[in-house]
């Protein structure tokens, strides 16, 4: 059974259709790139899976369940914006994650925080944007989740931080779980992906393994993307 499935999933914002009758099935044990231009529905899809949005029609199932309390215990979600409460210290933050999520690995998180040389009692307020991004990622990847939903994890950070983030994802996702990474920085994530899913105007226009796509087209996913979405 697929760990992540959409059947005729549709989401309208007023007269705007963000997801249009979308069908998609993703297996565990894979790292999948959710790729598409701005406004193609990437974030909407991830938000429905995290139950921040309700579909207009159709359904999305995680591990066979509709998004809700039970799926939240299995899904580690990294939003595309900063969400850390500024008044908390890093230590309080780790404790809060431990309280919320039974699959949170405190030792692992503490170890990763130490490798960033962030002091225990540092106020979030005093951290730079790049460091906050890394802290958010550490919190997300320290869970032993079945599904990781990472919305634009490498947007707006310098190349060295990108490497750090990708290595943190690769080195920490739970075996057998699904990692869904939405991004438009394809070149950076391409070597990390098993599969690429291209979205256009709320439709899946391509779902293929990265190496199969390279073999078939003789092009990188990035070059193929540029061709598919040429304006």
């Amino acid at each position, binding site marked *: 059974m697929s760990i992540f499935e959409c059947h005729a999933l549709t989401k309208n914002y007023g007269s705007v259709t963000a997801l249009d009758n979308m069908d998609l099935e993703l297996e565990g*044990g*894979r*790292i999948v790139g959710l790729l598409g231009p701005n406004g193609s529905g990437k974030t909407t899809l991830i938000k429905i899976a995290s139950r921040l949005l309700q579909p207009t029609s159709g359904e999305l199932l995680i591990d066979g369940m509709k998004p809700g309390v039970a799926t939240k215990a299995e899904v580690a979600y990294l939003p595309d914006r900063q969400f850390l409460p500024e008044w908390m210290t890093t230590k309080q933050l780790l404790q809060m994650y431990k309280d919320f999520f039974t699959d949170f690995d405190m030792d692992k998180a503490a170890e990763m925080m130490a490798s960033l040389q962030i002091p225990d009692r540092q106020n979030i307020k005093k951290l730079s944007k790049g460091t906050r991004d890394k802290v958010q990622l550490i919190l997300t990847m320290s869970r032993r989740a079945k599904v990781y939903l990472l919305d634009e994890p490498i947007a707006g950070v310098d190349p060295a931080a990108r*490497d750090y983030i*990708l*290595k943190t994802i*690769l*080195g920490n996702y739970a075996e057998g779980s699904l990692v869904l990474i939405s991004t438009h920085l394809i*070149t950076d994530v391409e*070597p*990390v*992906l*098993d599969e690429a899913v291209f979205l256009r105007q709320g439709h899946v226009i391509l779902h293929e393994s*990265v*190496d*199969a796509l*390279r*073999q078939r087209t*003789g*092009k*990188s996913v*990035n*070059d193929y993307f540029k061709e598919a979405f040429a304006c």
Partner: protein
Amino acid sequence: MAWQFDSVTPIYLQIIMAIRSGVLKGTYPPGSKLPTVRELALQAGVNPNTVQRALTEMERDGLLHAERTTGRYVTTDQAVLENTRHKVSAAAIAAMCDKLRGLGLDDGQIIGQVEQWMKENQENEEKEIDIE
């Protein structure tokens, strides 16, 4: 640091070439234990499944063999190692000849230029030794 990949060839094939070269250059000497899939994936900055696929292919070729529980080892079979050396050098030569043919050289010219380059290179090395 992550390995460098070109943007056209499937990544698992590039991993195979990199590990074959590593065996020949002594990064992974014959008889040694290879890093785990996860370690290699992290080093290379690639997906573990892609590494797995590359290693499985190399097991089929006999360059690697898996010992249950302890991990993967590089073969000590000289015939297989020689065959691997042949594959890696053939790929390097094919790439070079494609490029030179593309520049309009015929095969005789390519051989001539290679011989000349080797001669010059050799002389350079000798010169360096002279200076010392």
